[in-house]
């Protein structure tokens, strides 16, 4: 086969794969995007029940309950608003009262937030960027930089 037509066919295959990749990426992205809310934003915007979102802030001091049958409930705050989180999994080892946390899940009709994943920091100096921003907006935290 001549070099030109052979190259055309490769370009055509590349085009098909490119279109497939872009199409798949856009479709998949629509279902997989998870938005982040601070507790204040939740109070203002009321995300719907069952909508999969992330919430971040500080674990309120003294708010962690550990029911006798397992799981844990706690309150996430940004100083201005609070959200009660129920979680039936096992809290990560780095979860601590008074420190930053990001929870992923959805609101349930009782008004609580049911978490399917709890992300706690892996490092003393780490604060998830969204949490740092949320805390700065609510004025709770005047730390310097991204610490």
């Amino acid at each position, binding site marked *: 086969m001549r070099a030109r037509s*052979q190259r055309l066919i490769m370009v055509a295959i590349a085009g098909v794969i490119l279109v497939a*990749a872009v199409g798949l990426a856009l479709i998949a992205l629509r279902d997989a995007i*998870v938005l982040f809310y601070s507790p204040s934003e939740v109070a203002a915007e009321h995300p719907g029940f069952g909508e999969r979102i992330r919430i971040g802030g500080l674990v309120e001091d003294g708010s962690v309950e550990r029911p006798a049958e397992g799981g844990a409930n706690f309150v996430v705050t940004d100083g201005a608003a609070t959200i009660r989180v129920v979680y039936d999994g096992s809290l990560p080892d780095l979860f601590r009262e008074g420190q930053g946390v990001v929870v992923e899940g959805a609101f349930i009709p009782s008004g609580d937030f049911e978490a399917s994943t709890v992300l706690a920091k892996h490092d003393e100096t780490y604060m*998830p960027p969204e949490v740092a921003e949320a805390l700065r907006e609510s004025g709770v935290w005047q730390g310097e930089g991204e610490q």
Partner: protein
Amino acid sequence: MIAEIGRFLVALAFALSILQLLSGWRAASTGSAPAMRIAARSAYGALAAAVIAFGLLIILFLQSDFSVAYVAGHSHVDKPLFYKIAAAWGGHEGSMLLWCVMLVGVGAALARFALRQDEQLKNRAVSIQGGLQILFLGFLAFASNPFDRLLDVPVQGADLNPILQDPALAIHPPTLYIGYVGLSAAFSLAVAGLIEGRGGRAIAAALRPWSLFAWTALTAGIALGAWWAYYELGWGGWWFWDPVENASFMPWLVAAALIHSAIATEKSGNFAGWTAFLAIMAFTMSTMGAFLVRSGVLTSVHAFALDPERGLWILGIMTILAGGGLTLFAFRSGRLGHGDGFALTSREAFIGVNNLLLAAVAGTVLFGTLYPLVMTAFGVSGVSVGAAYFNATATPFLAALLILLPIAPFLPWKKDGFSRRLAVRSTLWILPGVLAGLWAFLIEASPVAIAAAAFAGWTLAGVVTDLWYHRVLQGAAARFSLTGRVLAHAGVVAVALGAVADSTGRPETVRALAEGEQIEIPGFTLTLDGVRRADGPNYLADEARIVVENGRVSELLPQRRYYAAADTTTREVAIRSGLGGDLYVSLGEPRARDSGEIAYEVRVTFNPMVWLLGLGAIMIVLGGTSASIGRAMSRRQKGMVS
């Protein structure tokens, strides 16, 4: 004093890299033998300086010299000896020093081993590598120096994050870094080849062994990381599509494409431009991985030490690499030459499609990983992309790869090669495919996973046929190459089947148990027999004795540890492995009941056939090693003939 010598050695390596850049450049331009000697000796000198600096850092850890900020931040007097040593590369500054040691190691290796028959190209590559060394050693010396002193000297040290105190994690970063940094050799050789106006074949031949070696190490590093995440993080998973994991997966995909396209380019000159482009992108992706891990711009479950200023440095380096490399590529790719051309059912065509599919996966992973950053740039913050995106985009392309993979080894180079014999042979592979699909159906996999399993069965049959059909190949070199190809391809099949099995895993069961209470999951009954103290050298621990019954009785001993120095709790999971899968048990927090009893949280999952993943990773690494050996042997034979 030792820290000051360390600082000096880092500066010395930096200065020698400048000398390496200049004299290597001069040697390539003028053919001057003295300049070539100076370039090589600068490279060796830089390596010696960096290795000794790294040794000194380890000595500082052994002495627990907490006047050094990095040691104070990552060690503790009570830390066991092995982990004092491993802590030298457990944090940001030390891991960057390790990165630099490997980068100058590649420079010295290029000067010593690369291209004995083309000294001009070799000197140019040594010079370019010197430039890379300057960028990263500059970053190390000016923005993350592990030898910086503290004004207030602490007595005990803050300790390394205890989850990093683990044998797999001690060897995971060095292995991963060999892979990341090994790709710098391909970068330097491709850039040098473009500058020198060499043809695509010469460049591909020069960079193939380095890329293969780097990719093999990268595979091992990623596998060790996944293994660590599996048993140390206690979540029961091994891959989460987390930004930090994607950061290592993207260079792996690009390097996988590179090691295939470079074969075609060396053989027949086809894909010359593409191969050079991949070589530039592979190391750029490695650097981007370092940026994503170190800058903290993305919320990651594995976020470690983070500092935006450092992120900017690495971003700057990455911009230089990608901008410089691709600009050069745009101006010079015309000189790479055109290949011999190839027919539609030749091996080149299949390698071409393989590369397009790998690039599609790399592209969609890149898009999903960076999407939150892009949105932030447009003022929309707080967007994250879930694992569902990555599963939905990567799976179809990876499945397509599996379909085409077994056919390629039976096709000739350049010519049309689809024969009736091959048609009959590949029809026979459908049967194992159907069996694998049936297996996936029986373990209740999703439709997508069933399809993936069927393709994997088809591929495995093809790979076995490849081995059988080509067993008559003569010569040790050809045999090593064949073994490498078959092992690596079969390893990919094993990983694919492991991922299918994993996708059928049931959700975790978490329950608080008092002594004598039970958890039942399908097939197993677990009883908490008791909890006792099991303190270690630098931690306090509770150890649960859990009796497992499934026909026979065994016991598991998960621990929950408290490291006082770091004020951190970790869990040591207990795993009972079997052919069917792993019973995976971790111990959580205790809680008091109203009755006064203490109940311990116990988390149980059953992870089907995890061993397939480990087996697959080992096979791929052995395959890469075997192919490297075959490559080295065939070069030696050719060298003797000519």
